[in-house]
């Protein structure tokens, strides 16, 4: 049984069909990439998965549980973490606080206990800090630890976003163009981290990405989209060679004549 099953996902914005009957499933422990030209609907799939958009048709199941109708925060609480294409961090907080916020779904204390900061709250905070520091170590963010996000370079902000998602200890991690705006070195680090996240943390990863080198080297399977229509699903090399995919990216052969 697949971890994530998407069936006939269809989304329309008025007359525009953004996604037309997209179906795919992601196995546990897989790195699954979604590629396609601009406007193909890749990020839209993510926004559907994290329930920011309501599907017009189709269903989403995680571990056989239907999540098509639940609220965005409930999806996150089921263990789907994500990053955003244009970075959605808490800009006025430190890196450490941002990562600690990822621990939100793991909290077990209530407001009353927190007002008195009881022993349970204290222990929970110590655990959260331990986990957050491990993630800061893993992503090599030590030098930025106490800095405000607003003061950080772009690549570091992208990394913090991954850190915050990791702090959620998710089952599935959605990465929306993780390498965009990163330098060569940062992209290299990123590809190591993604492999480590899969292998060391056992997290299933779904990536939307434009860097084809990264996609080919990391992915177990690739889904190619064009104008909201799924073209093909398969091994990265096979998908790259697929004539329809070439056409979607490069246009008709006639264009080169």
């Amino acid at each position, binding site marked *: 049984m697949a971890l994530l099953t998407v069936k006939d996902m269809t989304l329309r914005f008025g007359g525009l069909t953004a996604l037309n009957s997209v179906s795919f499933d992601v196995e546990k422990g897989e790195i699954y990439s979604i590629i396609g030209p601009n406007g193909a609907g890749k990020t839209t799939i993510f926004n559907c998965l*994290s329930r*920011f958009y309501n599907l017009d048709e189709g269903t989403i199941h995680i571990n056989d549980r239907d999540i098509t109708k639940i*609220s*965005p*925060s*409930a999806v*996150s*609480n089921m263990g789907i*973490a*994500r990053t*955003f294409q244009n970075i*959605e*961090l*808490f*800009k*006025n*907080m430190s890196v*450490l*606080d941002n990562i*600690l*916020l*990822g*621990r*939100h*779904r793991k*909290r077990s*204390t209530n*407001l009353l206990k*927190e*007002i*008195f*900061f009881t022993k349970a*709250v*204290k222990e*929970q*905070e*110590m655990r959260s*800090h*331990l986990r957050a*520091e491990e993630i800061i170590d893993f992503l090599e963010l030590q030098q930025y630890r106490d800095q*405000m996000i*607003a*003061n950080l370079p772009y690549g570091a902000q992208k990394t913090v976003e991954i850190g*915050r998602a990791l702090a*959620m200890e998710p089952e599935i991690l959605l990465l929306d163009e993780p390498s965009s705006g990163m330098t060569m070195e940062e992209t290299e680090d990123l590809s190591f981290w993604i492999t480590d996240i899969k292998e060391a943390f056992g997290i299933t990863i779904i990536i939307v990405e434009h860097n084809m080198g990264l996609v080919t080297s990391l992915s177990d399977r690739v889904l190619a989209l064009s104008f909201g229509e799924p073209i093909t699903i398969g091994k990265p090399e096979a998908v790259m060679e697929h004539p329809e995919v070439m056409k979607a990216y490069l246009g008709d052969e006639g264009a080169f004549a």
Partner: protein
Amino acid sequence: MRFELKRSYWEDIRIFRYRSDFRWYMALVFLLLVLPVFIGDYYISQFNVVFIYSIVSVGMMLLTGFTGQLSLGHVGFFGIGSYTSAILVSKGIPFLLAMPLAGLLAAAIGILVALPAVRLTGMYLAIMTIGFAFIVEEVLARWESLTRGNMGMVVEPPSIGPFEFDSEFSFYYLALLILILSLLAARNILRSPTGRAMISIRDSEVASQAIGVNLMKFKAVAFALSAFFTGIAGSLSAHKLSFISPESFNFLESVKYLAMIIIGGLGSLHGAVLGAAFLLFLPGVIIAVKEYLPHAIASQPGLEPLLMGLVIVLFILFEPMGLYGRWMKVKHYFEFFPLYKKDTFKRVKSYYKAEKH
């Protein structure tokens, strides 16, 4: 220059970051404890008002400064707190029970206000809360069987057991104690998951949903907490003034609350207290300075509101982080003495000016 060496996670969690901070706060508390012995009743009374409004300011800060929800209706919660406590005490319920009940009723109504409010943001939310303030004022004026309407109510001084806080001197210690407890409670909330979730809503609603923060729930929690503190302050204020009537809960009071947190510095508890102190001592300062001004200026009517407005405008323009922000910068300058960079706070400042506060 200060060098930090952290040895335990606890050093990031505890209330006071450094041991020296703790000593300074203890010194401040000690100073405040002995202060009323040396100053007259007039100044003690001024301090009492500052303490009460500081509690309101802490409540406002939690909602507007930390959760990013603009409210111009807090005078409504203040009024509910005042009347609840006054009525309960007049029915023979001890003050020690009536005060928290006043806070809890305000909190419950806060949740009711939050229900429609969670669907609104920014200006629309502000307008809705103004509506709430008007409703409360009207209800207090019209529900004559309970509130005696516009005739107002005489309120007994607060008492615990046989002891009555009937002088400014004794009330000073009561208000100070409750302010300190409020600050500690707010600090504890802010350093635990609920507080962080509230701040996350201020910074990005999309991202806070993506980490699993239930917007509806935490906005309601923020409203309830904020209303609770404001209700407690209302209760204290009613018993201090010994007379309340609906017109003292005019919506314009809320503007004053908002001014307090903006001047103090949005997003800091220090700012809450500093802003309240600044705004309430300002009229006194203006009166004192008036003597030395040329007659033509000093005798102008409306000098005080003009200066108040001017101060707020200047703060928003030049120091959006408020009094506490200014203090932080001065402190930062000395901590990093030879290495201070002029632009350290530049991005943070532009953030404060641009974002939705």
